């Protein structure tokens, strides 16, 4: 079984595998999104305390979850890449970052839109939102660092260390922000505690969480293929790819 795994550790074997897999994840993700949104917007009842405004959780909570899960996935690939010095691990880490950053941003955006009607302010220094903001900065830092370094392998490794240091720090950051928050803020603003969630609400939220996860995997697999193409462009198997040859013919036509 490990033979199989090591087989796919080479970009050349992973490229077609990712090509076959991403449509499956995309399809499953779309199906779950439709189901989750239908449950959330048309079946789940009105919340007693928050009225219809609570429905934002069906995208806010999944986005927050994903921003954290993706960062953990990045840390995993970073660890793998730094330990085994595999090229593909670095590429997967880089492929995940933009999706993670987008989810972190969405968590903040939807969090603000939820906060305004519920607590009266666009931004509250709630422990979770503040930690999410810092996670967003961690993503931006990773993307900035890997973009700024020209040498691809150095960028991968430096980014890997940054991702690992960040991942180790996230619990510390969260704990310190929680500490900071409880000491400063009087009324505790809790998003899901207090009002017990109806079954359908929880169900819809979990389904949307799964949906976003499948979407993230689909995005990462699609994106890593582009990264592989550029990184491995000097290797013969890339030149032999039908899509590359088609593009070459296209480019030739454009020139003549």
């Amino acid at each position, binding site marked *: 079984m490990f033979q199989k795994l090591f087989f796919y550790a080479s970009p050349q074997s992973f490229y077609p595998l990712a090509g076959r897999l991403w449509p499956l994840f995309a399809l499953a993700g779309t199906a779950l999104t439709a189901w989750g949104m239908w449950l959330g917007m048309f079946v789940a009842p009105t919340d007693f305390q928050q*009225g219809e405004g609570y429905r934002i959780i069906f995208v806010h909570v999944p986005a927050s979850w994903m921003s954290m899960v993706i960062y953990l996935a990045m840390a995993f690939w970073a660890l793998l890449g730094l330990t085994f010095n595999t090229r593909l691990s670095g590429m997967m880490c880089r492929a995940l970052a933009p999706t993670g950053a987008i989810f972190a941003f969405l968590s903040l955006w939807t969090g603000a839109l939820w906060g305004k009607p519920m607590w009266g302010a666009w931004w509250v220094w709630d422990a979770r939102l503040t930690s999410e903001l810092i996670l967003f900065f961690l993503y931006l830092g990773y993307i900035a660092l890997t973009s700024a370094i020209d040498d691809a392998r150095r960028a991968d490794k430096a980014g890997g260390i940054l991702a690992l240091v960040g991942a180790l720090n996230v619990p510390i950051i969260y704990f310190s922000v929680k500490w900071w928050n409880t000491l400063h803020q009087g009324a505790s603003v809790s998003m899901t505690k207090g009002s017990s969630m109806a079954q359908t609400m929880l169900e819809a939220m979990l389904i949307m969480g799964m949906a976003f996860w499948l979407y993230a995997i689909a995005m990462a697999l699609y994106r890593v293929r582009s990264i592989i193409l550029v990184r491995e462009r000097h290797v013969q198997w890339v030149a032999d790819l039908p899509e590359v040859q088609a593009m070459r013919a296209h480019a030739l036509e454009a020139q003549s």
Partner: protein
Amino acid sequence: MIWNSAADFWAMGGYGLYVWGSMGMTFGLMALEMLWVKQARAQALKQVALEIEAAQTPAKEWHS
């Protein structure tokens, strides 16, 4: 069905701006990301194709 009318659905009990602002940004950004990765792939293919052409063209001219 929990909505009495389409108008009720869009209004979201007065929270329409917030709910649809959230949904809109979420699915809008995700759609944008899909376009973005497609474009990245097109650019990658183009870059790779042009480089391979450039690497092989001198050889062609030599033989013609």
